[in-house]
């Protein structure tokens, strides 16, 4: 399926930085333009035609999310991004001294710092050591689990290593011990289907900007029945207020204080519609080919060290972290940029993982459905030139 018509052209530079932020799809921009140009207004609590239209579009996104993830509308909360969603769970739950949270040692800071903050409340953070290639051993998880474990938070796909994570298996093991599950799906949504009706996950967060949507918005899924209180309050969250006290609404609106990112939320709706239109089947098939090609590029290249899985079967997402012998990661990224390829370099907000790998940082190539085999061929040539400098 030719998806190029849905995205801005990559004429001068091939965009290989989708793990940081994907390209924004043209239908998303069109939908947001439509809001701003045709019915720009605040949502809810209004009577005029514009607010009715904007509220309808805004509310419609919850329906789309529910359908997309096989969940209920009321289980989704509009947040700024995946990071806010995870923080919301850490801040919005009651914790007791002695409670335990398990995280892996390959997490993005956004799925580590919120839990480390809980240490102030006496919560113990236990670290599940992943393998060097990013795979997670379920048996190691079993060892860490106990009745004190209140939550197991892990990424569906590492933003550095891209290893395949057995989400369902790990979640089931943790659930058996009574732990709740938080899934950081930032690198997963938009690449692979996520059936929350089947997956034993209690919380899931993702950002719109990594799956063709706009920046500044994301969604937090919280399963019905999983205890969660608003982590901040304000306009739009209350049923009644006096100067002495207030009572919050019962539905999800209690979590969404103040005017939300209306255009962006509507844009997110357009993004998941586009994903549905392209179809996860087509996307996965295309990305599988890209992954295979990229792996052969890295494995054939001299002076290049690839981190993470070396086979397509073990790859969970189309991202590749590497270094070129004797060259600084930032230098490699700048050189490749000059040669027409936009890649990210640094620790990718995963300093513990960088330390585990024994590096200051890596260069990361991350692909999406709009990348092509031809781009990878060009990348192979460019990487070859840079690698010969070593």
């Amino acid at each position: 399926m030719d998806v190029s018509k849905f995205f801005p052209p990559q004429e001068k530079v091939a965009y290989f930085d989708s793990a940081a932020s994907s390209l924004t799809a043209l239908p998303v921009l069109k939908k947001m333009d439509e809001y701003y140009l045709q019915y720009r207004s605040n949502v809810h609590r209004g009577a005029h035609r514009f607010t009715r239209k904007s509220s309808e579009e805004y509310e419609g996104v919850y329906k789309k999310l529910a359908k997309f993830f096989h969940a209920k509308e009321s289980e989704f909360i509009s947040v700024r991004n995946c990071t806010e969603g995870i923080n919301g769970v850490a801040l919005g739950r009651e914790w007791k001294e002695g409670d335990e949270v398990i995280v892996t040692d390959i997490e993005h800071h956004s799925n580590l710092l919120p839990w480390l903050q809980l240490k102030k409340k006496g919560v113990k953070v236990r670290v599940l050591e992943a393998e060097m290639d990013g795979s997670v051993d379920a048996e190691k998880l079993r060892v860490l689990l106990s009745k004190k474990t209140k939550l197991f938070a892990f990424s569906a796909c590492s933003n550095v290593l891209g290893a395949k994570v057995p989400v369902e298996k790990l979640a089931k093991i943790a659930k058996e011990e009574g732990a709740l599950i938080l899934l950081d799906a930032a690198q997963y949504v938009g690449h692979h289907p996520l059936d929350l009706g089947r997956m034993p996950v209690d919380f899931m967060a993702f950002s719109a900007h990594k799956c063709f949507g706009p920046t500044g918005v994301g969604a937090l899924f919280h399963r019905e029945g999983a205890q969660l209180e608003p982590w901040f309050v304000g306009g739009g969250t209350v049923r009644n207020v006096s100067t002495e006290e207030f009572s919050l609404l019962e539905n999800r609106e209690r979590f969404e204080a103040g005017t939300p990112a209306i255009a962006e939320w509507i844009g997110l709706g357009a993004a998941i519609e586009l994903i549905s239109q392209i179809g996860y089947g087509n996307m996965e098939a295309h990305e599988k080919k890209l992954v295979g090609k990229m792996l052969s590029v890295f494995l054939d290249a001299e002076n290049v060290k690839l981190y993470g899985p070396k086979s397509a079967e073990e790859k969970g997402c189309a991202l590749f972290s590497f270094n070129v012998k004797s060259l600084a990661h930032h230098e490699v990224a700048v050189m490749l940029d000059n040669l027409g390829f936009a890649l990210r370099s640094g620790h990718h907000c995963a300093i513990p993982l960088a330390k585990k790998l024994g590096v200051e940082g890596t260069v990361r190539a991350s692909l999406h459905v709009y990348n092509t085999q031809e781009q990878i061929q060009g990348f192979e040539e460019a990487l070859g030139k840079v690698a010969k400098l070593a």
Partner: protein
Amino acid sequence: MVLCFIALFVFAFLGIFSAKYRALAGEAFDCVIRTATLRPCQSGLDERIKATLIAKLLEKSPSSARIINNHFQVLSVAFTLLFFASMFYSAVSVYNYWAYGNCNGQESGAFCVFDAVANGGAAQLKPVFPGVGPVLGSGNVTLVEFGCFDCQYTKATEPYLHEFLLAHPEVSLEFRVLPITEHNESFNTAKAAFCAEEQGKFWEYHDALFSDADHSSENLRKMAQKIGLELVNFDGCVQAESTAERVRVDEKAGHDAGIYGTPTFYLNGVSLVGPQSVSDFESLLKGNVQHGPGQVSSCTTH
């Protein structure tokens, strides 16, 4: 890290003309301050500059890119030192120009990098007519030189001029004096030279003046005595108003022609200001030099 020093100067200069370079200059400044206070530079500007340069080179010559990449630290230190040396000498030159009217310093005999011939042009001056000053040689082509015995550029040209004249007997040299006001003894020296001419020894005295920089009245007499001039006549000549008038005639001729520095040469109807090499004179003789604005080092007249 050393690259940040160069980057600061370069981007600050470019920032005058374009806002995009001001942010880079700011980064470079931050890096320099951090380096000066023994803190690590965090901007990564030096890495970006290096990588950008290497990437540009990669497209042209991968082997050169590799060599430069492998020795980048040494090269960047060398370029930084050269940069600061260049800045220092530029500052000295600017000071010399302000203080002495030339970029090479008061007593320097060095040729300036600017050269009228090399730069493809000669100064546009009004013509002067030969047959007034003392002449060396009997060639039918006359090279007229306006010179000052106290000008280091006039002096510096002497060996090349001599070599040129030896190689070209068809050229004769006519010397016109043009004392530079800033050189306190130049007027007296010019008079002394004319007084040597009266006794038929202008060129011997001319050579003596260029070989001995002490042009005090006492030493002018000593030099005159040394080449065998009769001193009573010499002294009388130097004191005579007619001798001073003769110097003024040459001065006026030079100023009327628009000559602004010494040495200035005329040959084949073309004028050249500033010190010249043998090849410059050769070009002038062959008629390969065109009139045009020339940037030269010379002793400037007032």
